[in-house]
């Protein structure tokens, strides 16, 4: 999976949020689907709503937010999450 891909939250449709503690419920007004995300996924998704980003940038963000090391494992986790969010239809690649 190329790390040069730029991602952003789905455009043209709104995402609606609600949270209880570290549980984030997101309703995608486009697909009509509802998702339950943890803090990690919520951070990535909300960041991609603000602006498009690549894995590197998201990695930096996660590392500072969760006081973690920026390493290959984190990169891999983020990649996996991005693919899942893409499959769910809440984010898209920018061409």
């Amino acid at each position, binding site marked *: 999976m190329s790390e040069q891909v730029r991602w952003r939250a789905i455009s043209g449709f709104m995402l609606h949020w609600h949270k209880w503690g570290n549980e984030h419920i997101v*309703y995608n007004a486009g697909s009509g689907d509802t998702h339950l995300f943890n803090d990690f996924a919520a951070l990535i998704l909300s960041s991609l709503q603000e602006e498009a980003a690549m894995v590197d940038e998201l990695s930096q963000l996660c590392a500072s937010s969760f006081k973690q090391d920026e390493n290959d494992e984190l990169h891999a986790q983020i990649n996996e999450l991005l693919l899942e969010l893409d499959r769910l239809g809440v984010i898209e690649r920018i061409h």
Partner: protein
Amino acid sequence: MKISDLSLVDLKQRLGTSGIYLRTGPFVTRLQSKIPSVVNNFARLYANNSLLENIGFVDFHVSLAAPHGLRRWYRPQVMFHFDDQVPFKPLPYQQAFPMMEWGLNWCISNHAHQYLILHSAVIEKNGFAAILPAPPGSGKSTLCAGLVSRGWRLLSDELGLITLENLDLVPLARPVNLKNQSIDVIKRFAPQAIFSPEFADTNKGTVALMQAPVSSVTRSNEFVKPACIIIPKYTSGAATHLEQESKGNMFMHVADSAFNYSLLGLTGFKTLVKLIDRCDCYTFTYSKLEEAIRTFDELATVNSITC
């Protein structure tokens, strides 16, 4: 005037011709059928419901009838009609009465999107109302039947109707659907209750219907706001245990099992957020019905003090 005020002969005559107008909660149904088991079971299970006259507008026109042609005689069947349509495949003739109940549930879950419709039992005591959302086999109906036999009000055993603006729970107070072993359990638990005969070999196994308590029927125009959402889980031999459930998990559980959460889109999302926000959320494991009811009674007592 009540259904029980009509003689069986009169009831049979009306059901076989222009029909009986029945109010269950907010809905008026016109029911027609010449099938004896429908007539007899309706007379028994809906005895305490009001008999409506001179109704102009009806929400659901339904009838149960044997089909024309071969299946009227050979391995006889029964069909459920909604207005001039037949929404489901026919069932064996003996299952006409449970088919009526399932058909009425279908009418509501397909045509009442002015409500959020949860797949849940709803019960209430002393102003404390609990929603019991649970898949089939969880013991929801058994628990519901047990509770309403011990002073709890029945709003519904199957369809939790919630108004979108105010989050009011809307009663139906229709018969409780019991399956397989739970039929005997409840018959022993509530020997004074009125039951339909048992209907064998249905899609859900053996089913029987228990009449809604008369006070539940009388109070079926009383709304109440929910205090609690409790997922029941019958587990043989298990200790009675009430445990807090996270709101996020409860949201997803209720959304998945609701009839029209997806259909209602953003409105459904916002309504369910308000509901989960408002309610305490639990999972509840039990094996002994008496103990389960005690737990619920305690919850009702604690909560009515704080309300």
